[in-house]
């Protein structure tokens, strides 16, 4: 470990100085999600207050800690007590936290999520005891939200690049053995053993060999990779060094979607830091290992998540897949052996090499070792990014960590694996989340998106949504996918419009089977999954749309009518002001009515009507629903505690 010794010493001193800083330090979560929630105003406010008070507080931008529903997140270090993590901090709260906690020494317990110590302090429980954090095992995400992703010293201080240095000492064969013993499987979805892919590429003839990091997170509803790249880019880059060494690659590419500008910016900074430290170049630390990393911005095509399509795109062509074999590990980028690895898979490698295979395999299930990050979104109370051991049950993830359904709704299903995955119904909530169990349930692990659905989500509409996506993203090369997805989408569109026929379901099943069997690449082979799982578990919803023209979730516009009950309407006009379409009319203080031609089905009126009156209801077929969940303020707005 003589390499970087000086850098380590400096980094550790810098980190210690920060941890023991006599001056206050404020860490603000400023990843894309934090910024959307207003982190930049919070940063400005803390700087302003510090200047006013002459306190010289340091404000550091960090990545995302995970509990997105509590953004903007702030960690305050003030001498004389443990650091405190706050949630839902706006500019107003920032001023108050500054006055009471930083200047006054008394933390604001009402906004605190927890203290960053093992025991409670100031009446605030440890952050690890927070319901959203308790069931988590944060390994890959350990640095996210804690370190400055643009500060190389912060990464080094936590043992960064020790894994790579150990790999250099061990040599490629032993690195592959270590990763094999750890049981690491690809985190991009299919779960292929990482070591096996490496062995193929390592023994394949032809030089140079290439390593590609697939950061083209194209699944709608997934943001694990974005968070890791924005919060801890060096972890992924160190993983690339380790993988590159193992397969004998000399060049690495990060294929990152252009929609993630902040991730690209942080990667560029980190790659520059690696180069300065001698971690990239012709002969790294005199070991004879030569490696360099370049960034390729993806231009937006879901099919490029498929390995051969991704390669075509890196080569500057239309991103169309090729038949396999030959596999990329034998003949990939420019016909040379190429390994393509998901961001999270790479993020696991430094941990395995630093702590050993045994430590790594200490958590997880029999066939799936280690942890997995999941992006919780949809109708769940606590949205965000979580990391749990593989084999954790859906119940633990959705209810214990995620807090169940938002606004008191009823849990209906969880969608995993994005457009390639499927919907797991509520009755299967005790399913352990690992590769095999999810496949048996008809879905896939995917890269980790988890969209939670409640009774307001129409399963036919969900299937139509995903089919609409895959149909648009189908590259058109092979017939089953090109024609089949369009045919299925056409049927689904008819059904949600109330024009389905009983024969449609049979036809759907038939086409789905053909597309699955006959498509060239993973996109087509998995495209029918959303349709097949919803037909398997929610067939009654399809039948209701077809037979009684009703949508039990009240979401398919052609089947749903918004009405005002004249007996309950007091003519207060709240709904008139809330309606963005000017569809509600009536004299003041007398019952109003909704112009059905103008109504856009946005539910704004439902939310506006005073709960005491509850005059607005929806009908679909024979069904009628008076909004029972009046406590929600904004339909669709995520809970933002503490926002004034």
């Amino acid at each position, binding site marked *: 470990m003589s390499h970087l010794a000086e850098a380590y010493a400096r980094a550790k001193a810098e980190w210690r100085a920060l941890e023991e800083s006599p001056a206050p330090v404020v860490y603000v979560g400023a990843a894309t999600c934090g910024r959307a929630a207003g982190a930049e105003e919070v940063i400005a406010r803390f700087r302003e207050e510090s200047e006013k008070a002459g306190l010289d507080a340091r404000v550091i931008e960090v990545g995302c800690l995970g509990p997105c529903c509590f953004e903007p997140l702030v960690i305050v270090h003030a001498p004389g007590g443990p650091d405190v993590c706050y949630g839902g901090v706006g500019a107003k709260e920032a001023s108050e936290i500054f006055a009471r906690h930083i200047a006054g020494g008394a933390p604001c317990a009402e906004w605190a999520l927890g203290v960053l110590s093992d025991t409670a302090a100031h009446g605030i429980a440890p952050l690890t005891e927070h319901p959203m954090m308790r069931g988590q095992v944060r390994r890959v995400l350990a640095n996210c939200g804690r370190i400055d992703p643009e500060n190389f010293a912060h990464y080094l201080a936590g043992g960064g690049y020790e894994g790579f240095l150990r790999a250099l000492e061990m040599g490629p064969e032993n690195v592959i053995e270590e990763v094999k013993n750890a049981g690491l499987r690809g985190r991009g979805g299919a779960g292929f053993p990482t070591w096996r892919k490496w062995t193929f590429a390592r023994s394949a003839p032809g030089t140079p060999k290439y390593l590609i990091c697939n950061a083209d997170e194209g699944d709608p509803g997934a*943001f694990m990779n974005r968070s890791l790249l924005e919060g801890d880019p060096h972890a992924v880059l160190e993983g690339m060094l380790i993988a590159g060494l193992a397969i004998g690659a000399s060049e690495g590419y990060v294929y990152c979607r252009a*929609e993630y500008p902040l991730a690209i910016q942080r990667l560029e900074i980190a790659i520059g830091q690696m180069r300065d430290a001698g971690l990239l170049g012709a002969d790294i630390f005199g070991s004879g290992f030569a490696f360099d990393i370049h960034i*390729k911005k993806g*231009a937006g095509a879901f099919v490029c998540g498929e390995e051969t399509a991704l390669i075509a795109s890196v080569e500057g062509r*239309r991103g169309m897949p090729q038949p396999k074999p030959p596999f990329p590990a034998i003949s990939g980028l420019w016909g040379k052996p190429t390994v393509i690895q998901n961001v999270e898979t790479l993020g696991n490698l430094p941990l395995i090499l630093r702590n050993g295979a045994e430590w790594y395999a200490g958590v997880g299930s029999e066939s799936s070792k280690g942890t997995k990050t999941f992006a919780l979104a949809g109708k769940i109370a606590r949205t965000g990014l979580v990391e749990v051991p593989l084999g954790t049950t859906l119940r633990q993830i959705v209810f214990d960590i995620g807090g169940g359904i938002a606004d008191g709704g009823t849990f209906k299903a969880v969608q995993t694996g994005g457009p390639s995955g499927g919907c797991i119904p509520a009755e299967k909530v005790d399913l352990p989340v690992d590769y095999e169990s999810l496949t048996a349930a008809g879905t896939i692990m995917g890269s980790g998106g988890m*969209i939670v659905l409640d009774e307001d989500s129409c399963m036919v509409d969900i299937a139509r949504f*995903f089919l609409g996506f895959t149909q648009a993203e189908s590259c058109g090369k092979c017939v089953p996918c090109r024609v089949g997805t369009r045919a299925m989408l056409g049927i689904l569109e008819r059904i949600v419009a109330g024009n389905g026929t009983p024969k449609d379901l049979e036809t759907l099943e038939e086409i789905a089977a053909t597309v699955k069997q006959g498509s060239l690449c993973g996109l087509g082979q998995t495209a029918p999954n959303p349709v097949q799982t919803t037909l398997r578990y929610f067939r009654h919803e399809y039948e209701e749309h077809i037979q009684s023209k009703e949508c039990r979730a009240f979401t398919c516009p052609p089947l749903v009518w918004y009405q005002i009950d004249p007996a309950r309407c007091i003519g207060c006009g709240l709904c008139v002001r809330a309606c963005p379409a000017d569809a509600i009319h009536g004299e003041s203080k007398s019952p109003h009515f909704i112009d059905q031609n103008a109504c*856009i089905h946005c539910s704004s009126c439902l939310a506006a009507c005073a709960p005491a009156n509850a005059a607005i209801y929806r009908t679909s077929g024979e069904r009628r629903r008076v909004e029972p969940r009046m406590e929600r303020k904004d339909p*669709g707005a995520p809970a933002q505690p503490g926002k004034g």
Partner: protein
Amino acid sequence: MAAATVDTETLVKDVVARYADARAGLIPILQDIQAALGYISPQALRALERETGISANEAYGVATFYTQFRFTAPGKHRIQVCNGTACHVRAAARITEELCRYLGVAVGGTTPDGEFSLERVACLGCCALSPVLTVDGKVYAGVTPKKMQRILKEYGFERKAGKS
């Protein structure tokens, strides 16, 4: 905009000079051109053909494969409305429809005054804050039809007829 032809020629030349292998670098070259021009114009494709020998046809074929590239001039303000899964289950389709109606444009279109262009994107990766839209890259979370109208007002959009 009017003098674009002359500028386009030099612009493309400068961009191409940054890449050792223009064929392998075609996508980054197109990205750079779009970053400078706002879109891929026919003039730019013809300039690219003269500069690199890659036929305008082929470059256009590559560009149309990817959703990032656009072939008409964008509006001054660029609105991206997310239609990812998380946004979809929180009524993103209603927001999109309402945006179209309110702005008076179709998805992919630009308002006649050239001020606003509307795009639908698959996922912005802010799923926990859904439904989301961005204006000129700034992310707005938890959007409702009413909130959308307020956001557009920030950028100077006033609906011509009816109430504001």
